[in-house]
């Protein structure tokens, strides 16, 4: 059987690897972006000089041949679902028995005047990185539009090259659709501390060209004019499904998939950023364009392709990011706007760059989520508590188990417990401190 995977990002490659683990099928991975799989999230570090491009490739080049995964550098123009064949750029066709669409995302453009000028781009692909390099030559000022994770990464990239940046964020505070007020404000502070010209509640209205059709000036909705030679469009991404969306495969915003990641056409699957869940799991969005879900979808699809029906279950929500020097961890439910039925405890370090937030159900006391800034928390422990519906006071007394900071780092769990005691009049004592032995015992016990 010939399994063809379009896209060599994390979801496509995860699919290929797991199909190989589970079967002896022929596997072909097609990509027009790069010869080899690389970590998309690491592109910023190439620009900043932390790594070379080849260092972002998780597997050595011999890996693919050894595992009989055929790599093809080409572009698929259309899918012929009747003949089970792909029409390629060079008028050739590639036939498949089962097809996996791992098409990824493309940066959003909202019809801004000037959005297609030279020097205006997003930051998603290896080609985008090359574009940033090209435009960075002699770059005096960059404007970034859109306050999400890619926007702040782009700001950090330019900052590393000492290129002044104006950062336009539509919201009143950075990423406040996801982060609660306190965390969001912490990130505002960090952005400004790094010398970025952060303009909140500001939107892009228009980009004006120079005589060579290159970006020259950005005009905001407040009428400000910002001279620049580069505009980064980082107002989110959308599924990159242009070449399939008008075909036989049912699409809405993304490619519609059921819980087995199968599309509306037999033997075709979709995974990663481009897949839209027909019935999203409770509390989850239909499209989740993040690394981890791509990896888990790839694995799930592989099981289904290899006739081991497995429904997609990414488990408890988790994510992480880094805002300049501040790491961010979230496990479970810690939304920007907390529903009435939930309670939260927010502790912040006096230096304003570390915080711990716990969220629990007001009525039952069940822990619902953890969110930390500048403090590392342990995935398995938080997940176990959330899935076991541990009581908030039980969690607090054992909170040290969750701490994943390096040795000799200060532990703040005591302060968190004290804060809880103060607001509730309780007298809880922190029992467990950071340490592997207790964690392993806890995890084994819970099993």
């Amino acid at each position, binding site marked *: 059987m010939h399994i063809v995977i379009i896209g060599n990002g994390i979801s496509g490659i995860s699919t290929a690897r797991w199909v190989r683990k589970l079967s002896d099928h022929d596997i072909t991975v097609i990509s027009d972006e790069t010869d080899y799989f690389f970590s998309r999230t690491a592109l910023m570090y190439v620009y900043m000089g932390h790594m070379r491009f080849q260092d972002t490739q998780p597997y050595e080049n011999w890996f693919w041949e050894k595992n009989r995964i055929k790599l093809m550098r080409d572009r698929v123009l259309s899918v012929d679902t009747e003949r089970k064949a792909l029409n390629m750029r060079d008028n050739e066709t590639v036939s498949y028995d089962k097809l996996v669409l791992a098409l990824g995302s493309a940066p959003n453009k909202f019809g801004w005047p000037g959005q297609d000028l030279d020097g205006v781009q997003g930051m998603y692909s290896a080609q985008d990185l090359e574009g940033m390099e090209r435009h960075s030559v002699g770059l005096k000022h960059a404007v970034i539009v859109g306050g999400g994770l890619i926007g702040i990464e782009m700001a950090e990239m330019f900052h590393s090259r000492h290129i002044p940046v104006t950062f336009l964020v539509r919201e009143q505070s950075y990423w406040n659709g996801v982060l609660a007020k306190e965390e969001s404000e912490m990130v505002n502070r960090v952005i400004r501390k790094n010398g970025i010209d952060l303009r909140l509640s500001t939107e892009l209205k228009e980009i004006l060209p120079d005589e060579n059709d290159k970006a020259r000036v950005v005009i905001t909705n407040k009428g400000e004019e910002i001279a620049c030679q580069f505009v980064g469009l980082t107002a989110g991404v959308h599924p990159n499904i242009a070449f399939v969306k008008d075909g036989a495969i049912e699409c809405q915003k993304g490619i519609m998939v059921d819980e087995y990641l199968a599309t509306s056409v037999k033997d075709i699957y979709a995974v990663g950023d481009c897949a839209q869940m027909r019935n999203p799991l409770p509390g989850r969005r239909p499209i989740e364009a993040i690394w981890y879900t791509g990896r888990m979808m790839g694995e799930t699809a592989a099981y289904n392709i290899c006739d081991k029906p497995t429904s997609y279950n990414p488990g408890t929500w988790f994510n992480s990011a880094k805002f300049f020097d501040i790491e961010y961890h979230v496990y479970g439910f810690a939304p920007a706007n907390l529903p009435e039925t939930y309670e939260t405890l927010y502790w912040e370090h006096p230096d304003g760059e570390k915080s711990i937030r716990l969220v629990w159900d007001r009525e039952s006391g069940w822990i619902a989520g953890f969110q930390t800034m500048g403090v590392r928390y342990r995935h398995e422990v938080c997940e176990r508590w959330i899935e076991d519906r541990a009581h908030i006071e039980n969690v607090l007394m054992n909170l040290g188990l969750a701490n994943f900071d390096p*040795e000799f780092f200060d532990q703040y769990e005591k302060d968190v417990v004290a804060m809880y005691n103060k607001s509730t009049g309780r007298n809880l004592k922190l029992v467990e401190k950071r340490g592997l032995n207790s964690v392993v015992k806890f995890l084994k016990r819970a099993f």
Partner: protein
Amino acid sequence: MAQVDKSMSLANPHPHHMDWIQKVAAAIGGIGLLILFVAIFGVINNNYPLWLASALGLMTVGTLIYSWREYAGKPAGIKNNHVWFRSLTNIGLWGWIAGILITGFYILLYFFPGLFGYQAFSVNTSIPHGSDPAQITIRVENQQGQVYSTNTLSINDTIKTGDQFDEYKFTPSKIAHGSNRIIVGCKTGDDLYSFTYNKRTAEKIGDTNPCQIEQAELKSNSKLISLFDPLSMALKGKPASQWFLYGVLYTLAILVFGFKFILKYWHNRYQLVRTISVMFFQLGFAFLIPELLEGLNRDRPYFTLDMKNMWPLNAYFFQDWNLNGMLAGGKLGMFMLFLGIAMIFIISPLLTYFYGKRWYCSWVCGCGGLAETAGDPFRHLSDKSLKAWKIERWLIHVVLVLITIVTVAVLFSYFRNDPEGKLWINPTSFTMIVILLAGLVSSILYFNRKEILGNVSRKVYNGIHITMGVIAILSVIAWFTGSWNVFFIDSYQLRKWYGFLIGNIFSGVIGVGFYPLMGSRVWCRFGCPMAALLGLQQRFFSRFRITTNGGQCISCGNCSTYCEMGIDVRAYAQKGQNVVRASCVGCGICAAVCPRGVLRLENGSVDIKERTTDMRTIHITADEVGILS
């Protein structure tokens, strides 16, 4: 991406902005270095303390100011911007220049110390076969007959019958002060002939000379080394040798670059504590204490006084001059002897069990200390490929086998040399000890074969058994035949070649000289037998591992890139598997540079047998599939 150049930086290939203070600081440090450089040509002939203080002081001040401007007051965090853009740190032109300069320095230091102005007392002689002296002894005495210690080879070192030797070098103590005599003695049968030379004129006083000693002359240090004489005299009452010069510069490098490293990782207390530890051990244990102790024990022959320096990194611990030195060294000698043996068999296995080999390699060791401080800017240059890992495993374990063989051979000859037994050990009991130890290693291996064979190939497993067997059998044969040389190769030749190839070329010239080309841990990774030994302990009997934080890894590759030991950390992290690797020195940089908080250095006994399984992986497991389908 093939068309993209390796840095991918088109816009800003030379982005490093040095401010004027840093430029001045670099100039200050440069002047300090220049003083030492011109001293090589003998242009400095007076005011040594002033010149040395100026040179070291300027270098220190320059580096400190430069580092301060580089890091102080910057936001706390990882400071790897532009690492791959700079020519010095991306194997560019400056990287090659630095590599060649450091390599050149080491070659001169090891093999041509005379160019730095080092002068040893030398005797040119040959032993006529007819005279057949039983031994030749060279000693330095003062007029009261008190014997002074020496630095390189023992003054009481003996040369066996029939040996040809051209030059016999050592650093006599206090030769330039007071009236000393140099005695070159030949022993023929029961008769001892001695010849005494006047210290200044090298005039021969005695006359009967069956050894045909042609020349013995004394010179004092000159050029660069003489700058270090006053400091050496102050510390231990002896003129400087090239090793003293090396020790001073080495310690200074760890201190000033340690300061730089501390500023760079100000936000990371693990790095801070660890760096202060290597600075402390280098300054105190490796430099000050041994030098001062040597000064206080001038009347005794020299032996190693670095309490943290253990066999097999310290290859000469079991060599005759060191053993003799310790045996003649009174309480201090006995202490060093027992500490040295306890370090090998008790202290280091225990500490490695509790904390992994990092307690030594990145907290205590001098080689590690230099790699972690001066070598830090080059840590990302280590090769991460599977091929490099294969080469590493072969090389480092071969070196461990070599040093084991050399040590057994040298010890065997040592005990043969003195059949009455030193330290209550004679050839017979030593043979038994060797058999016991070989048997112990083999049985540990055998009784843990299940676990070990799950991790190493049968070839390697059999190889260790065979090596142990061969060592034991050869020892028995040598004991029966009364041979001097347990492996039928002259043990002194063996020792000499090991010292030359591994001790000098590998650990020194390549080990440090190749920092800018192959990363900062070339020696630790490919050559150090201590790292090999601790690595085996860490791999099989330690609580230490690097844990992975569930499913948080984004495969970015920062951890692998900045692993100085060339471990592909990401390969483990993206699978959710603990990193349990023999080579990991526990520097903690992978955990520091990780942008997603995925890695943590941890010790735990509860799951010690399951450290390598990927039980914490966050993905669909076969069991879940079973339930669903």
